[in-house]
């Protein structure tokens, strides 16, 4: 009986993925790969993505489903980051911002964008109930592609961002010059042997998760969950379902914005143009792998999913390479198969109309 209900909770797809991860880890150990390096890069990869995966939570809980359009939030974050860098450049003569302040400024500047975009995006999603996932995907694609035009025309003057010749912002804007690269990763970083624990990065992910957790226990959070899991119940309880969905969308967008800044500081660059295009799919797949469905999710799913999915991505490449050098693309291929396989599986489980 107990094992039966356990099996029901951890369904087959997740079991396979978890086993695959365990298999990879055992193989990595057996092959005497550099474990310290693997653990270090796993930790930083997990920390990088944690908030982006977390951004899926309010979206699913509020009933709009996995936020395939979190690229909107990502773009808001990038805009915030660029604005902060631009401001720092313009004020260089007057004041030098410390990296920490600059990072907070980036977050601060991205918030108004994220709030505004989130409200508009939520309004749109309220009008297309039942097709949110497809619409969100294409809204994301459209915005990313129109932003490619915008990156060319936006009046940024900071030479660290602009192409030396031609116009527009670079494809990748380096954060190292102003000490932003690895800022959180290095904050309170702990070194155990060769393993580096990016304490600041993990802490900021945990802080965001904690805030979301508190939010979910507030009146608004409870109302949002009610609206998401049973809109008719919520309506009868005097909750405005549409409003809760907008709140969920805004929250998801804001987390997307914060998430990309945390991601970018670890990566060392702001990735513009194509950069945000396919990031939502990774985040969606991660939370689904963690055990969420398109209509149900909690913090545990975020944590488990981020560790499993991003852990696999880090470990798979060296393991595959250890077998044969020709299998260099194996990491990317397995990511594609797992990521999209899991999303497909979740779609079939949703049971359609």
């Amino acid at each position, binding site marked *: 009986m107990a094992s039966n209900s356990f099996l029901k909770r951890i369904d087959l797809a997740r079991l396979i993925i978890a086993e695959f991860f365990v298999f990879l880890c055992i193989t990595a150990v057996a092959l005497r790969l550099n474990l310290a390096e693997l653990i270090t890069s796993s930790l930083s990869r997990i920390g990088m993505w944690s908030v982006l995966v977390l951004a899926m939570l309010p979206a699913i809980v509020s009933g709009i489903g996995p936020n395939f359009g979190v690229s909107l939030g990502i773009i808001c974050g990038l805009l915030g980051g660029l604005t902060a860098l631009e401001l720092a450049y313009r004020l260089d003569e007057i004041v030098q911002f410390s990296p920490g302040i600059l990072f907070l400024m980036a977050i601060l500047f991205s918030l108004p964008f994220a709030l505004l975009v989130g409200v508009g995006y939520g309004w749109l999603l309220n009008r297309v109930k039942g097709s949110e996932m497809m619409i969100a995907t294409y809204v994301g694609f459209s915005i990313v592609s129109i932003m490619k035009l915008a990156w060319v025309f936006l009046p940024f003057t900071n030479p660290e961002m602009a192409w030396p010749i031609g116009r527009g912002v670079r494809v990748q804007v380096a954060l190292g010059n102003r000490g932003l690269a690895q800022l959180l990763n290095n904050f309170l970083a702990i070194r155990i042997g060769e393993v580096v624990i990016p304490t600041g990065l993990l802490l900021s992910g945990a802080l965001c998760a904690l805030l979301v957790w508190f939010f979910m226990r*507030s009146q608004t959070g409870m109302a949002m969950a*009610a609206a998401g899991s049973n809109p008719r119940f919520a309506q*009868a309880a005097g909750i405005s379902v549409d409003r809760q969905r907008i709140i969920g969308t805004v929250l998801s967008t804001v987390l997307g914005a914060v998430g990309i800044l945390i991601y970018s500081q670890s990566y060392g660059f702001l990735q513009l143009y194509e950069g945000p295009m396919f990031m939502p799919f990774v985040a969606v797949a991660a939370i689904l792998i963690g055990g969420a469905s398109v209509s149900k999710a909690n913090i545990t799913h975020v944590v488990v999913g981020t560790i499993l999915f991003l852990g696999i991505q880090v470990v798979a490449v060296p393991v595959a390479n250890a077998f044969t050098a020709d299998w260099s693309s194996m990491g990317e291929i397995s990511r594609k198969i797992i990521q999209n396989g899991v999303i497909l599986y979740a779609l079939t489980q949703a049971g359609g109309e």
Partner: protein
Amino acid sequence: MGAAPILRMRGISKSFHGTQVLHDVNLEIMPGEIHGIVGENGAGKSTLMNILFGMDVIHSTGGYEGSLEIAGKPVDIKSPLQAMEHGIGMVHQEFMLLPSYSVAENIKLNREVLKPNLVSRLFGSGLQSLDYERMYRDARRALGRLNVGIDEFAPIAGLPVGYMQFTEIARELDKENLRILVFDEPTAVLGESEAAHLLKAIQEIAAEGIAVLFITHRLSEIMEVCHNITVLRDGRVVATRKKNETNVLELAELMVGRSMQFNTNSKRQVQRGKPILEVKDFKVDMPGEQVRSVDLTVYQGEILGIGGLAGQGKIGIANGIMGLFPASGEVKINGEPLELNSSQAAIAAGLAFVSEDRRGVGLLLDASIELNIASGAMFGHGKFLKTWGPFSQTDRRAIRENALKYIKQLGVRCTGPTQKVRQLSGGNQQKVCIARALTMNPKILLVSEPTRGIDVGAKQVVLDLLRELNEELGMTIVVTSSELAELRSICSRIAIITDGQVAGILRPDDSDVNFGLLMAGQPIEKGA
């Protein structure tokens, strides 16, 4: 006649998820006979027809017991397609039409006239061409049999509902082997003259030798066209009558008659306080339960029952007051006008609602019992929260204490306050719903279908609970129920809703006949 019956249903029983909805139903129909089937909501009419039509809901829930015979041959109908092959046609309650097709294409839906072509000879009959000429001709002929001048080329979208209904009938008539035709509430969507035309058409169809099963709650229509009438109640055949051996009064009584013995609540009609809830010219646009114009007054401290047949609008009243469906008119609580179309306003005014759709509207199935109980007060009145300025956190301890109190008080059977509501039985779920409403500390409690889908023992408990709340706490309660017997056992007055209006208000000890007549839309003539 004296011929063999065209359709014979023997010992039909069916249960859904453990609830028996049909018990040993027998039915026989002769060719050319119009056979009426009447019964209250939930009497089993639609389940019986679903069995006859081989609908998927029957087979995906374990099939049925008993046997079907068509023209003396036993048959087992597994799909609508097979039903069609046996010559059974059905005019459904909702339209089964495709809006962008023409009338003719709808009439010939999946029975298109085909002609082979070169490709179909090579690649199979699926690629045969449609023979539009002959489809139009067939459609014209079928429509001609109904004496209606509908343009067979016209697309369905934009036609008046009456035409849609006739298109559906024409589709059935066009089936060459049609032997049995089922009409499920065919006049519900029609205006008076269209309804009259339809009844005439039904008689003509029967005159051609087709057996007609006519399902309706309009007893006058039954008396007008049927040869024989079967009355269903609680999934059983309570009577089969010839038309000239019965009358509307008897049918009404048979239909409503008490299925369970409850103590009639006759002594409680005296205490009448001041009006607490006044409803004037109230209209609610609830699909399938349209409220057209209701005037009703509820007095402090009473239990008012709202009864009537399904689809007449009784369910719409409470839903409209609670702001769940678009409503207009005037509602006053303690003399204060209530803002309509706002659940928030209704809750703030001290109303609490136990919905008829327990699993859909009443509960968060995947949330804990304690959370469900607290949710109404939390969302409606901001209770169970610790707040710091704009920030709030749920007060877990208060929620737990409140839940434990009600679990004990109402006797909810569960493993504990954190059990998921989905795992509870229907009766216990209903108790959670009531606990949720009580936690909101309402001035008026609106309860819809309190005993729907729960077993007999639990029914009594829920009803006793409502009575106790009323007697001991003086709570004003408005109960809406399809089960008249229940209403009569706990209410002090019972309003019967017919056609979206109050047909009359009766005492619980009024006669069955009076209840039956009001429900069937007939005026009460004498004192009876």
